[in-house]
């Protein structure tokens, strides 16, 4: 039994540009949550309780033992919360794909805030906004001045903004990984700082599907075909990010007959998930008689992949080598 005198660990859970699916990943611990609460005091979790940022501000610096941060850094407020949490917590864990790698919001790095607002508030067919009203940072309404946090042109992952101790990837992190992480925290058995709290091998290593010597000549998007349940997606010509993605999710999408989209990010051995995916696809795309094909024919083969960036960097553009689209070109 736990000694009464032993103080509980203090945990804070903060959020940035997030869908809050990561909060659900914590709630999904279900009955195990009661065990967690026996060992841990949650001092800040605005999604689950009506807490304001001031409450976090009032806590002494370094008084929180562990904090989870989920979501990417897309605006001023996200950054402020990340910095505040960093100051208050001894150990900071990037929780989920957005915090670890930038996530889906990171695809905003293909454009700028200006273009993004134009699309959202003006150009979409269902938008009726003749005066092009859009969010402005400071507004005065009947004598009150209102401030909205400024959206950054470049979305960042958490470790581009503050020092991060551990990474727990996934969209959202799978329950067994969350459980293991919490166990490591409460028993004081966290690995060396900087580690990712998931196995460091690729998804193909835990994928149950049957693999053959690959020769893909036709590429299908998932809606264009009905995949065989037993065979490797890539063998069937369906792009699956397994070869460039860290394992640990239990291959759940694969079990649901959907190819991997790469939410666990790359392993520590790969700098850039998309580049690695191009490298591995380069090894397995191929045709009979390719040796004698012209450059144009090879190009046609490769052109079947319509959106390499969106496919290979769906979750990791802000933590990739180039981080964003270069906007100086026309």
């Amino acid at each position, binding site marked *: 039994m736990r000694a009464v005198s032993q103080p509980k660990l203090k945990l804070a859970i903060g959020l940035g540009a997030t869908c809050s699916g990561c909060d659900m990943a914590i709630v999904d611990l279900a009955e195990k949550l009661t065990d967690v609460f026996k060992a841990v005091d949650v001092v800040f979790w605005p999604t689950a309780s009506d807490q304001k940022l001031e409450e976090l501000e009032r806590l002494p610096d370094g008084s929180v033992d562990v904090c989870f941060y989920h979501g990417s850094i897309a605006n001023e407020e996200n950054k402020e919360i990340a910095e505040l949490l960093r100051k208050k917590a001894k150990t900071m864990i990037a929780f989920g794909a957005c915090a670890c790698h930038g996530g889906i919001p990171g695809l905003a790095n293909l454009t700028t805030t200006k273009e993004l607002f134009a699309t959202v508030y003006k150009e979409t067919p269902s938008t009726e906004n003749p005066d092009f009203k859009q969010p402005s940072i400071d507004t005065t309404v009947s004598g009150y001045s209102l401030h909205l946090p400024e959206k950054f042109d470049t979305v960042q992952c958490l470790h581009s903004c503050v020092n991060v101790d551990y990474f727990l990837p996934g969209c959202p992190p799978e329950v067994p990984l969350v459980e293991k992480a919490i166990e490591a925290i409460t028993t004081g058995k966290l690995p060396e700082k900087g580690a990712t709290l998931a196995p460091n091998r690729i998804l193909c290593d835990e994928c149950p599907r049957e693999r053959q010597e690959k020769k893909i000549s036709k590429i299908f998007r998932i809606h264009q075909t009905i995949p065989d349940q037993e065979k490797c997606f890539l063998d069937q010509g369906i792009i699956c990010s397994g070869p460039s993605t860290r394992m640990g999710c239990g291959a759940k999408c694969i079990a649901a007959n959907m190819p991997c989209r790469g939410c666990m990010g790359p392993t520590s051995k790969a700098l*850039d998930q998309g580049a690695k995916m191009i490298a591995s696809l380069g090894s397995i795309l191929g045709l009979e008689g390719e040796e004698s094909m012209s*450059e144009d024919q090879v190009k046609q083969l490769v052109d079947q992949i319509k959106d*390499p960036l969106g496919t290979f960097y769906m979750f990791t553009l802000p933590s990739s080598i180039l981080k964003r689209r270069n906007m100086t070109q026309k």
Partner: protein
Amino acid sequence: MTEMADRFEPQILGFLCNWCSYAGADLAGTSRTQYSPNIRIIRVMCSGRVDPTFVLLALKNGADGVLIAGCHPPSDCHYLTGNLKARRRYHLLLKLLDQLGIERQRVRLEWISASEGEKFARVVNEFTEQIRALGPNPLKAS
């Protein structure tokens, strides 16, 4: 002389395969063929060893152009299919560069055999002029 100093001198990184293109570059050297000094060569065992990560890192670190050179298809590759893999990766990488807003002309794939010293020199000269016309790598400033 002042005119020369004002001219933009591209920095080009070349990944040359050990068996064909590096030997081709060597032949250009031993034959004393003159070519642009803008290329810096890294010898790799095979053009199939050139991970797209290398190219992105080179561009990130300010290279104005990246040349990948390997053995002629169909069958010159010492490892049988390394050059074919390089070719598939190259075409996929070009599509990615379009999406990332980097001019695809900055990356070039060429087949240069051990006997093609002249071709190596010509490719380097052409590529240097092409990059010079294109201007500096836009990522350099940031």
